[in-house]
């Protein structure tokens, strides 16, 4: 009897090890460890890195990437991608400023309409991906270009000043000392976390990302889910655009250029798979913090901007590469057992 139990135990040990190695918790723990390590390195190089002022500054400046990365995580988990997020962010600021400054629409209503335009773009993306079944990369690459062009057409290429203190609160203000944009980002992360982990909708997204066809056969309304997820991504991108306009007190059609790459980097760094079906919002949140803290620390330690790009890219490659090695190791351990 004892021999059988021992044999069972010895057989199950490699499986447990494989499960542990493959687990998302370990990915998140790795990320936390990387984040702490980066913080320690910068703290040893700059007396100002671990100060309250700097903490608030980092909090104030990561909201944009953080908010967009929530939508991007959901889109990637569903097996898609959204390259239009930067252009959509620019559109929300441009529409808001034009309605407010040129059409005398009250600022609150102008902001709502600006966000509405972004929801529409997200919905159109979702329609082409889910209903027309056009590859999401192609669809959102097209909308990336169309929406940016629209932003230029609407604004005639001009930057508009938005010098309204109430409007600037979201990007610059704080609530009991904590930046408002950081609080907004955390609240959105919390809501998205609940949706992804405690609702049928969230679980379905993972299933769709794993296999859309199998999900359809299992009775999941794939099209509806994809429509919702792209629309949500449009809304969150628009919200990020409002945060940018609020921070800079201006809107520009060139705003958020390259945002899609930063956001995808943060999400992938956080452990979300580009092939869908896998990823966590906590991982994304840590990924967002890592990229922002890297930029912050490199600027404060006066590293040349050319090296900053090299370092950011290397960290992304190392983190993702390390994770791939770990997963292959897990697969090997499982096969051997």
């Amino acid at each position: 009897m004892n021999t059988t139990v021992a044999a069972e135990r010895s057989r199950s040990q490699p499986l447990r090890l494989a499960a542990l190695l493959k687990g998302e918790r370990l990915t998140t723990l790795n990320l936390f460890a990387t984040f702490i390590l980066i913080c320690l390195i910068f703290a040893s190089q700059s007396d100002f890195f671990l100060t309250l002022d700097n903490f608030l500054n980092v909090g104030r400046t990561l909201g944009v990437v953080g908010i967009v990365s929530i939508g991007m995580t959901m889109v990637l988990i569903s097996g898609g991608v959204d390259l239009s997020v930067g252009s959509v962010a620019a559109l929300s600021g441009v529409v808001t400023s034009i309605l407010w400054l040129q059409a005398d629409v009250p600022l609150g209503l102008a902001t709502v309409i600006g966000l509405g335009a972004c929801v529409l773009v997200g919905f159109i993306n979702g329609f082409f991906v889910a209903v027309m079944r056009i590859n999401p990369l192609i669809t959102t690459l097209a909308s990336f270009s169309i929406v940016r062009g629209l932003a230029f057409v609407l604004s005639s290429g001009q930057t508009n000043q938005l010098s309204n203190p109430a409007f600037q609160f979201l990007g610059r203000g704080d609530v009991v000392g904590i930046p408002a944009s950081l609080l907004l980002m955390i609240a959105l992360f919390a809501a998205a976390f609940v949706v992804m982990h405690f609702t049928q909708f969230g679980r379905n997204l993972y299933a769709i990302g794993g296999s859309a066809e199998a999900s359809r056969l299992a009775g999941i309304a794939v099209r509806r889910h994809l429509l919702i997820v792209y629309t949500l991504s449009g809304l969150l991108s628009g919200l990020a655009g409002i945060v940018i306009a609020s921070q800079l007190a201006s809107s520009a059609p060139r705003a958020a250029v390259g945002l899609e790459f930063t956001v995808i980097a943060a999400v992938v760094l956080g452990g979300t798979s580009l092939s869908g079906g896998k990823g966590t919002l906590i991982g994304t949140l840590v990924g967002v913090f890592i990229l922002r803290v890297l930029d912050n620390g490199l600027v404060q330690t006066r590293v040349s901007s050319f090296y900053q790009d090299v370092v950011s890219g290397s960290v992304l490659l190392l983190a993702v590469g390390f994770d791939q090695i770990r997963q292959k190791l897990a697969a090997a351990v499982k096969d051997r057992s």
Partner: protein
Amino acid sequence: MFRKLLSIIVVVSLVAGMLLPLTAFAQDNATCATAQDSYTIGFANLTEDIVFTQLVRDGILSAAEEAGNVEVVLADNRLDGATALANADNFIAQGVDGVIEFQTDEAFGNVIMSRFRREGIPVIAIDIPMPGATFFGADNYNAGRLAGEALAAWVNENWDGDVDALLVLELPQSGPIPAARMQGQIEGLQDNLTVPVAEDMIFLLDSKNTQEESFQVVSDILPTIPDAEHIVAVTINDGTALGVIAAAEAAGRADQIMVVGQGADPSGQEAMLAENSRYLGATGYFAENYGSYLIPAMLDLLECRPVPPAIYVDHVFINKDNLCEYYGESWPDACPVS
């Protein structure tokens, strides 16, 4: 008789002296292979996405219309050397008489120019020199210096010449031209401050030519200079300057900063006019006037009249005090007609 003969000789000489230049001109025009009654000029813009280049395009079109005998064919180089080369080939195919090139990639300059040279098409290059082309554009170092000097004068008057930190919002990836602009600003400031800023308090920050990046890097650097009460910033353009100001405002340190920039485009002008503005001003490049230099210069080239190898814009430092003089029509509320 002798007097009569002398008078005739004098009169004939005078008449000949007066006619000679005209004859020479007629001869020049006859030998000037590119001279015609009307011309088609190609203008390849740097990009159509920014205000500055839109103003350049509009200025060229309006100067061409004024000239009366010039038709302009437009192209967009989209900030890309390969596109500029394709546009150059299109211009040749369309049989343009002369070309005004505004393109960013120095490496493509040689190739583009070899095509135009082969066809005998004269070229004027805006802002980025191309081998064999007449250069037209900003006098970058001096433009920068004007802004630096203005900032130093303000600091000497308002902060007793005392500066704790200098933020330099540059654009290192774009090579020597923006670098000359930045060098001019730094030297214009340092040479004129009562006490120059210490080397270790000069922060070189990559603006990446965007307001957001400028906002972020300045937000990152401000916590490292918590004791600095007098901070100045020199910037590559108006957008970058506005990003610096936004960062200082967000950090609650707007009253500790004063900023100068380059360009004086409408967004910069609006910021200068704001109450308690931290944007002292910007060197004007007058993009809208480029056409009034470029079209006559191109006509000179086409009609074989001498043209200097480089033509520079006359820069002026634009601030709240002289804005109405240059851009009064754009700001009717701030600049009432006297």
